[in-house]
């Protein structure tokens, strides 16, 4: 079953009295365990698609199925629970909670899920080890480098074992070496956990790592290439 299936999805915005057609009838489908990148220039609609796939925004027309559920028919509360249970996010600016330590940031999604304290501790410790930050558990985000913060963000997205991880320009704020390390980490996790990764990017390195590359321009799919 497809974890994400978009059928003739359109998204229009009102901007300064004009209607902006961000997506124009997009058809896309992502299966389990994919490692895909959506590439395109600024304003092409790649981030908009990611937001719609992550149930952060509502579609104008069409159908967006997430985990087999029609997101367009869900209430605000149901969408929040869907995001909590099925989707992990990695942001360009990491968006860690500055007042919490590394382990507390990572365990935050588990707190939302109501996981008991013992399990939270175990799962947090395991993922910290996987992302190579087990010696930095007590640090605050501001005491870490950009690459380390993005590792924390990845750990936070993965700790709840979501079906999909949506990463919006995850390497944009990182130097190429760190970006490569981060991508290597995500590839490894994709393989070990079987989690679907979907990136929006214009970083060629990300495109190189992706096993499926979707190019988007002016709100329409330009190409959809699965690498051998």
């Amino acid at each position, binding site marked *: 079953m497809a974890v994400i299936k978009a059928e003739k999805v359109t998204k229009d915005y009102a901007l300064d009295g004009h209607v902006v057609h961000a997506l124009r009838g997009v058809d896309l489908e992502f299966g389990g365990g994919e490692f895909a990148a959506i590439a395109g220039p600024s304003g092409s609609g790649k981030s908009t698609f990611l937001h719609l796939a992550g149930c*952060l925004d509502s579609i104008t027309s069409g159908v967006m199925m997430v985990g087999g559920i029609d997101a367009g028919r869900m209430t605000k509360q149901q969408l*929040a629970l869907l995001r*909590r249970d099925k989707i*992990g996010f990695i*942001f360009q600016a990491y968006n860690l*909670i500055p007042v919490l330590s590394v382990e507390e940031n990572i365990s935050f999604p588990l*707190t939302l899920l*109501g996981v008991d304290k013992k399990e939270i501790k175990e799962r947090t410790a395991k993922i910290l080890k996987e992302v190579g930050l087990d010696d930095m558990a007590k640090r605050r985000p501001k005491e870490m480098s950009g690459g380390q913060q993005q590792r924390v963000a990845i750990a936070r997205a993965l700790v709840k074992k979501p079906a999909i991880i949506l990463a919006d320009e995850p390497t944009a704020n990182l130097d190429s070496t760190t970006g490569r390390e981060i991508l290597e980490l995500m590839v490894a996790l994709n393989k070990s956990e079987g989690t679907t990764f979907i990136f929006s990017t214009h970083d060629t390195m990300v495109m190189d790592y992706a096993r499926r590359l979707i190019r988007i321009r002016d709100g329409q799919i330009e190409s959809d290439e699965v690498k051998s």
Partner: protein
Amino acid sequence: MSLTGIWGLKKIAMRNLSRHKVKTVLTSAAVMVSVAVYIFLTSWLGGMAIESRRNIVNYDMSAAKLQTALYFERSDERPSYENFRGWERYRDALYGEGFNSAPRFVFAGMLFSNSGSAPMIFNAVDPVAEARVLHYIDYVDFGRFPESGKFEIAVGTTAAEKLRVGIPTRPRRLELEEFIANTAQNETDAAFIRSLYEPGKTSTGFLNFSTEREFAGNERMILTRNAPRADLDRLWELIAATDRNNVRINAVIDIKAVPEIIRIGQWNGELMPYLREEDKALVEAAYTREDFVGGYLLVEEDEAVQEKILAAMIRAGFRGAVRHVNQLVDAVVVGVINSPDPVPNGNTGYIPMDALQDEAGMMLDGAITELLIRKKGAAYAELPGETESAAAITAALKRGLGEPLPEYLGVFFWLEYMSDYLGYEAMQTGAPQVIAFLLLFLSFLGISNTILLAVLERTKEIGMMRAMGMTDRQMIVVYMLEAGFIGFIGSVFGMILGCAVNYPMVVYGWDLSAMADSLGGGIGFRVTTVLRSVWNVPVIFGSGIVATLLASCMAYFPTRRAVKMPITDSLRFE
């Protein structure tokens, strides 16, 4: 999410407090001050109210009064014509049922001294009975309380100062010298009197509102506060040897009495049609018609029969059964009252009732306007409750008398009598509480502002949290917890500060006598001496809890506004 889950979010809320420590501390401090002020003011005003009520009961009202119902209705006018006789049987009945009582005839008039005059409320009292019911007699500052059978009067400090009787307490230097010249019989006396006074402090600060010009001889002299009682008694004796304390009472009162003559028109129009059938023969037999005076003349001389006739006329509502008494009565001021209650200290005089019964006095002829009632052995601090209610006393009277009270008489509980004061008290205590509440409200606006800024500053973070699946409700709870913690910290310290400030006010109190003196004997409340606050545990804890909850609620609207923003807009917010 369960309550446990929500509580799991408290870590974020608590950590958020540390983001801007100065802002958190200042906002908590505002709550702390507000809570402390509220606790202090409430305790203070509560102390004022309780002390005032005790003073009313102990120095002015007692627990209840037996009066005519019409007197109670018109009590502001002090209608002396609404008096009654035969009160001794009510006193005896009450005594047998466990109550003390004290008769009074209250009337208004003027009191003249050698130096001036003052409008007064005179209380004709039985000194012995009065001392069993009220406590002001223990507060005769100078001299003593009048003795039964003598034309003596005790007046309040305000009246004494105005009439310049008794010991002057705050004379100008020239007035003191004049007083010494009139009082001292030799130089030793003069030196003794001077030794009792010291110059008053002259205020030069911006709070000096006095319009009196200071010049030589106009300086204020103050009677030494800790002057020995023996010295004051000696000074009083020196005064008593002069005519300084001689006064004259001028009053007009109306006493219910069988009229000597009833005009024919009154007889036919106002009396006969309203008399009961069984009373008509009694009245007709007591009067004889004399056409040369145009009316009916009283011929019955038996006082017992006259009492029955008067009772019949009162039952008939006959307004002519009144005797006007306009008397001048000479008396001597033998004491000055300075009690914790401003009423006895004001323009009030106390005279032995038995001296005023006949033509030499006010011709009271056994009538009284009220019988003050208090439970035997009632503790000073005890406010009258159910056992001293009007209903309980009425029932006790019925048992003691073996019959109900006459219709025209009623027992009135002190609270009924003081309804005007209690309304005033509510206003007096309400206004500062409103101010304290406004202060509290302002601090809550501060919390709201803090949360509003926090929400604005953390818009992107809020977007991220919502993207991760945090519901709007959870987001609101996090910020309400954060505001609640600010309120809680402020409340705890506010409760501690409020109690700390309150402690000396409860234990030592605040001596208001100087302020009360300068304001003419009262400060609005019925308290003139040391004011003590009271511990009000429900208010202390209640204000802390309410402040915490209100603080928490203040986060609701800013957060609700934040979660209405689309998540994508929040994530893009810079």
